[in-house]
């Protein structure tokens, strides 16, 4: 019958810190030890932000949590903000389509699809994406690579592939990838 507009302190702190997450992220990108390690840079920025949020809520009375629910809501807001930036960060550092746009941008002239493929990722070529993704799957123990053969590996590879198939079926998706 009524809408309550009161905002729990931990939620307010989480919204502010979540919005400004790019600032610690920028600092992480300046650390030479984390250079070109984009996922680690993001992870450390999120851990730092959560740490600041926790300390603020725990020790600043003005933003103190009234109970477990306040902590939960604040944590969800901060994690939600991190997810938004993670999506943007993922697109910037791993985006396939954006990299095709960057290849066209760098060339500064019209390119055929074959030329785009060759110029992809600053000249690494489109084959790079294949090596990168297969390398990631191998490191995760989901496939083995033997010369040109890629083999699905039990149990991790089979489990993830079956889970993926189930998700596609449940969602009723006709095309993916």
């Amino acid at each position, binding site marked *: *019958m*009524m*809408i*309550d507009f009161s*905002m*729990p302190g931990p*939620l307010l702190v989480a919204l502010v810190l979540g919005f400004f997450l790019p600032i610690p992220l*920028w600092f992480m*990108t300046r650390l030479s030890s984390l*250079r070109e390690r*984009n996922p680690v840079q993001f992870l450390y920025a999120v851990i730092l932000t959560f740490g600041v949020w926790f300390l603020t809520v725990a020790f600043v009375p003005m933003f103190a949590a009234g109970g477990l*629910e*306040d902590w939960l*809501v604040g944590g*969800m807001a901060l994690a*939600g903000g991190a*997810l*938004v930036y993670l*999506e943007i*960060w993922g697109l*910037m*550092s791993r985006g*396939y389509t*954006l990299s*095709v*746009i*960057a290849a066209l*941008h760098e060339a500064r002239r*019209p*390119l*055929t*699809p074959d030329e785009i*493929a060759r110029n992809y*990722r600053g000249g690494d070529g*489109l*084959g*790079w*994406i*294949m090596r990168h*993704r*297969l390398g990631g*799957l191998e490191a995760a123990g*989901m*496939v083995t690579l033997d010369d*040109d053969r*890629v*083999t*699905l590996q039990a149990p991790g590879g089979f489990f*993830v*592939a*079956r889970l*993926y*198939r189930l*998700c596609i079926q*449940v*969602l*009723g*998706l006709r095309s*993916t*990838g």
Partner: protein
Amino acid sequence: MIATGIIQGIIAFFGYTALLLLLLRVFHKVEATFVVLLAALFIFPVALASFVALAPSVNLWVFSTSYWFLVLSFLMGFGAIYKSLSLRMLLTLLETPTHEKSAESFRKEYIFGDSFNNRLQLMVDQGLAERTDDKLSLTIRGASWANRLVTLQRVFGIMRSG
């Protein structure tokens, strides 16, 4: 009261997933990304109005945070399912009788085949690129996006993407 807001957010999220399962089957010719986003935006005010009408009290911020956190988490997973090359390769291996395949055939099928051409077509469809004869070039809008992307990548020290 706050716990109620969280529960209301969870109920609204389940309403969203139920609606989505129906919509993705009914509108299977529509781009799935639009369906999942529009359904999330549609359910939010409908659920809020329902709780205002039926529940003794609704905390706007707690309900919104709970609902959108769950929706965002779902969208992250959905994005991976819908666009991940790695997952698609794993599924292909699973459905191949010997569970193995040559890297070269993956390269031809996914990288230089559908996936690459779909993305080029998507760029044209969204007005980011245009085709002249057999060549593609960025439109003014595409060049503007590319400039922003490169600037952001420089600011955050991202050397290359892909």
